[in-house]
C-alpha cells in the first residue's frame, strides 16, 4: 500500500476532564484538487454534527507539519481524514489503523521539511504524547494537480463518503468509549 497523506481529520475535546478527548482532524491542501478531500469531508461532517455525538469537535489541520504534533497531543482518540493512495478506484474511502499500513513509519523523519502525517505520529509517540487510538479514513484521489475543484469521481462520491464516515465514526466512538 502506498500512502500519500497530506490531510488529517480529528475530533475534539470533551467537556469533562475525566471523559476521553476525541477529535476529528481533516488535513489537506485545497489548492491541489483531490488532496483537499479531507477538508471537504470535515466540513460536510461538521454540518451534520447534530447527528453525531455532541462531544466530538472538528478541526481543520491544514497541511499538517509540526502544528499537527500539538493537535495530536490534545486527544485520546483521533480520526484522521486524508487523501490516501492505495490503488483503489478514485473516490473510494476506507477506514484503517496504523497497524494495517505496511509502510508505517517506525523511524523519525530526517528533517522538519516535508514531514508527513505518519512521521509526525511517529514523533508524537516518541514524545510519549500520542493519542491512544488513531484511526484513518483515506480517500483514493484521482487528480492532485494545482486547482481548487475536486475531480468528477470524488465530487460524485461525496454523499456516499459522508454517510460511510458518519456510520463508522459513530460505531468506533461507541466501541472505544
Amino acid at each position, binding site marked *: 500500500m502506498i500512502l500519500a497523506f497530506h490531510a488529517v481529520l480529528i475530533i475534539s475535546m470533551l467537556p469533562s476532564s475525566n471523559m476521553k478527548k476525541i477529535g476529528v482532524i481533516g488535513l489537506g491542501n485545497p489548492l491541489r484538487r483531490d488532496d483537499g478531500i479531507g477538508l471537504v469531508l470535515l466540513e460536510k461532517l461538521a454540518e451534520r454534527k447534530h447527528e453525531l455525538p455532541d462531544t466530538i469537535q472538528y478541526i481543520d489541520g491544514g497541511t499538517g507539519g*509540526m*502544528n499537527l504534533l*500539538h493537535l495530536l*497531543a490534545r486527544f485520546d482518540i483521533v480520526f484522521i481524514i486524508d487523501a490516501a493512495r492505495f490503488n483503489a478506484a478514485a473516490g473510494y474511502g476506507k477506514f484503517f489503523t496504523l497497524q494495517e499500513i505496511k509502510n508505517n513509519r517506525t523511524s523519525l*523523519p*530526517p*528533517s*522538519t521539511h516535508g514531514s508527513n502525517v505518519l512521521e509526525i505520529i511517529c*514523533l508524537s509517540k516518541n*514524545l510519549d504524547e500520542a493519542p491512544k487510538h488513531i484511526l484513518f479514513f483515506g480517500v483514493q484521489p484521482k487528480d492532485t494537480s494545482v486547482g481548487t475543484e475536486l475531480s468528477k469521481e470524488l465530487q460524485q462520491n461525496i454523499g456516499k463518503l459522508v454517510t460511510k464516515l458518519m456510520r463508522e465514526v459513530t460505531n468506533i466512538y461507541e466501541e472505544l468509549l
Partner: protein
Amino acid sequence: MSNTMDITIDHVTRVEGHGNIVLNVKKGNIEKLEWQISEAPRFFEAMLHNRNYDELRSITSRICGICSIGHSLASLKATEDALGITISEQTEFLRRLAINGENMQSHILHIGYLALPDLFGVGSVFPLVQSKHKDSVKKIIHLHRLSNDMSDLICGRTTHPIRLVVGGFSAVPTARQLSDLKKRLQKDLTVAEEVAKTIHGVIDGFPTFTRETEFIALSSKKEYALYDGVITSTDTGKHPDYKNYQNIMKEYFVPYSTALHAKHVRESYMVGALARFNINSKQLHQNAQEVANLFSLKAVNYNPFMNTIAQMVEFVHNIEDSIKIIDQLLDSGIKDEKPQEITLKVGRGVGIVEVPRGILVHDYTLNNKGKCEKANCIIPTNQNHANIQKDMESFVPQIIDKPQNEIELNLEMLVRAYDPCISCSTHYLDVTFI
C-alpha cells in the same frame, strides 16, 4: 592560504525560504563570495492596490506564516495612523500580548528546531528525540505549544490572526482564560530557564566571530520596545521622525539577489533580537537579565551568532512581560469593547513594530474611499541581507584553512543565526500606483 575550492550551498537548510551561498577560492584568493537570494519575488505591495482599508491587514498577514501577527500589527498601526484612529488601552494591552506571543512562537522555533541541531551536531531536531537530549526536545516542544496556545487565545488563531481588526479586536479573551494563561506562563518560566541552561552547556559550538556593525531597533523610555517606540541606531541615536523611515532604511538592489538590501550610515546594519538587546538590554525584566548574565551577553555585542542567545533572553522577557500585562488587564477588568468607529479620510500612515527578525515597517496611502493607493513594506530580513554578506566577507578569511565541510557548516550556521525569513524578504519594489 593556498587552497582552492568551489562551494555552492543550494539552498541553505533550516531557514525559511530559498537562499544560496557561493564561495569560489583559487590558490587562497577569494574570487567570489555571495549570499544569494533566489526566491521568486511576491509583489505584496502591488496586491494592496485599490484594496479596502479593512482588507490590508488580512492580505499582509499572508506575507509570512511565522510573523503573521507582526505583519498584522504593523498593518493596523499604519491604517489607524492614516485614518487618525486612537485605540483603547485594553486593545493596546492585548496587542502587546499578541506581539509577545508571536515573538515566543518564532524564537523557540528557531532556537529549538533550527539552531540547536547545529550545537548538538545533528541535521535536524528529530534525531534528538531518540537521543539523550529527549527531555530538552520535550521542553522546547512544550514551550512552542505554550506560545501557539497563547497566540490562539489572543488572536483567534495560531497563525494568520482573525481577531485583530482596525480599531480594536473582534473578540477578546475572558478574564478566566487570561488567568489560566498567566498560570501556565508562570509555570513555564522555569522550563524556559532550563532550556537556556541546556543551550549554555553547548554554547562552545558557536564560533567566536565578531565584526563591528550598526544595529537598528525601536526603543522606548517606558519599556523594552516591541509594539511601539522610536527608530534608534547604535551609530546615530534616536530618529523620532517615523514617517521618514526611508532616510534610515535605504533599500537598494544587488544583481545576485531577488531581495532588496539595505544600509544606513555604513555598508550594512543588523536588525533582530541582538539589535534590540544591544539597544534596550537595560529594560529587560529580571529573569531575562539573569539569562543574559548566564551567557555573559552584554551590550554592545558584535557576534552575530549570539542573535540566537538574544532570542532566548527575549523569550524569557516575553513570558515575564506577558504576566505583567495580564495582571494589568485583570486589574482594570476585561471589557467587551467594540472596535473604534471609523471615518474615512485621505491620508498616509506608517506603522512600525518589532517582529522576531527585527524592525518592520508598513506604509499606506489611503484615498477618500478608504482604498489603498500606495503601499510600502520594509521587511527585517531585507535589512539583514547586506549584513550577512559583509559578515561572510569578514568571516571566510578567518576560517579558510578549515576543511571544506567545516567552512560550509560555519557559513550555514552564520546565515541561520540571523533566522532569515527569505520568503518575506523577496518583495522587490517600492511600488507607486498610477
